[in-house]
């Protein structure tokens, strides 16, 4: 009868781990209410697959194990599902997330299901060979560890955000010495000067510079800033599009937004806490040539 308890224990631990990895925050994603149900359901299936893995092996049900491996393949579709949904929604997004951010979100979803399977396998094993108390302790450890592991690096780790002067050189909008765009309509220029916010994102080292070089990373920052501070951009108002452009000599990023809430400290906080996208992450300093080139 022991394998019954180990399956149930593994299932419970897996579902619990998946619940802790679902977070409701400003992105309103993954957790549109109905998506929450989708993901809890998928997480439960993942947990069940993981929970029966060890008992199936122990009872020499190798066919069952093969089928479980096949079932795990299904979780690849989770990534596709998320990518498709978000890409479709992107069309009506005034300040888009950018394809890199979407890829990052989709990949995270897939990975979290595998983590759920892994948790369930581990806990069902612990129950089988050890006891309930160790299983509870192991669950707590895994969930705590995954809470730490799931938060990756943020822009604040790789760069410094400082306030910058927004000004016009003729019709050209500049953030310090970085060219942003040509604004031809004079009242729009006045509005931008009066209500706009500008910052410079200075990379801390060459790795940071390579990350900020990525256009998808910049779009993710802009999307987050516009989502949290609001934006005056609307259909037929391209002048107020938030933009981030690079100083081609130093690699620093000049960022311009026309927010509904003009608050520099909040903007800095938002930018510093924007995640560094996996697809943008680059480490030239890890290569010998990159290190030599950097000095």
């Amino acid at each position, binding site marked *: 009868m022991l394998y019954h308890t180990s399956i149930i224990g593994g299932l419970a631990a897996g579902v619990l781990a998946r619940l802790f990895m679902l977070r409701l925050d400003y992105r309103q994603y993954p957790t549109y209410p109905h998506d929450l149900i989708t993901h809890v359901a998928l997480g439960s299936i993942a947990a069940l697959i993981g929970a029966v893995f060890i008992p199936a092996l122990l009872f020499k049900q190798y066919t069952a194990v093969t089928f479980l491996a096949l079932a795990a393949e299904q979780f690849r579709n989770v990534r596709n599902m998320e990518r498709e949904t978000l890409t479709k929604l992107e069309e009506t997004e005034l300040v888009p997330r950018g394809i890199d951010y979407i890829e990052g979100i989709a990949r995270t979803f897939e990975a979290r299901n595998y983590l759920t399977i892994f948790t369930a396998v581990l806990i069902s094993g612990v129950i089988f060979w050890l006891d309930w108390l160790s299983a509870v302790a192991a669950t707590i450890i895994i969930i705590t560890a995954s809470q730490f592991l799931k938060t990756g690096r943020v822009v604040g780790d790789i760069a410094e955000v400082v306030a910058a002067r927004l000004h016009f050189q003729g*019709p050209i909008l500049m953030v310090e010495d970085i060219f942003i765009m040509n*604004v031809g309509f004079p009242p729009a220029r006045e509005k931008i000067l009066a209500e706009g916010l500008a910052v410079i994102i200075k990379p801390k080292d060459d790795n940071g510079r390579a990350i900020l070089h990525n256009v998808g990373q910049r779009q993710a920052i802009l999307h987050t800033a516009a989502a949290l501070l609001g934006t005056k951009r609307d259909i037929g108002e391209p002048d107020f*599009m938030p933009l981030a452009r690079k100083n081609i000599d130093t690699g620093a990023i000049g960022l311009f937004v026309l927010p509904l809430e003009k608050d520099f400290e909040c903007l800095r906080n938002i930018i510093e806490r924007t995640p560094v996208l996996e697809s943008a992450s680059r480490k030239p300093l890890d290569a010998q040539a990159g290190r030599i080139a950097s000095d």
Partner: protein
Amino acid sequence: MKTELTKVVLAVIVQEPQLVSGGAPVFNASSQEEQERIALYLSRILNGMVHDLGNGVFIIVNH
């Protein structure tokens, strides 16, 4: 699928017609205010952005 004409000069607004020729539709304005007004209307109609070329020529471009 939606197709849009982007990165194309959709309209030109000038006070001095001799500055431009050919290509996009050219709108003549008699004063600075009129030029700005036409530019605003056209940018709203075309969903485009007004750009100033610095020589008194405004163009509308959809990005």
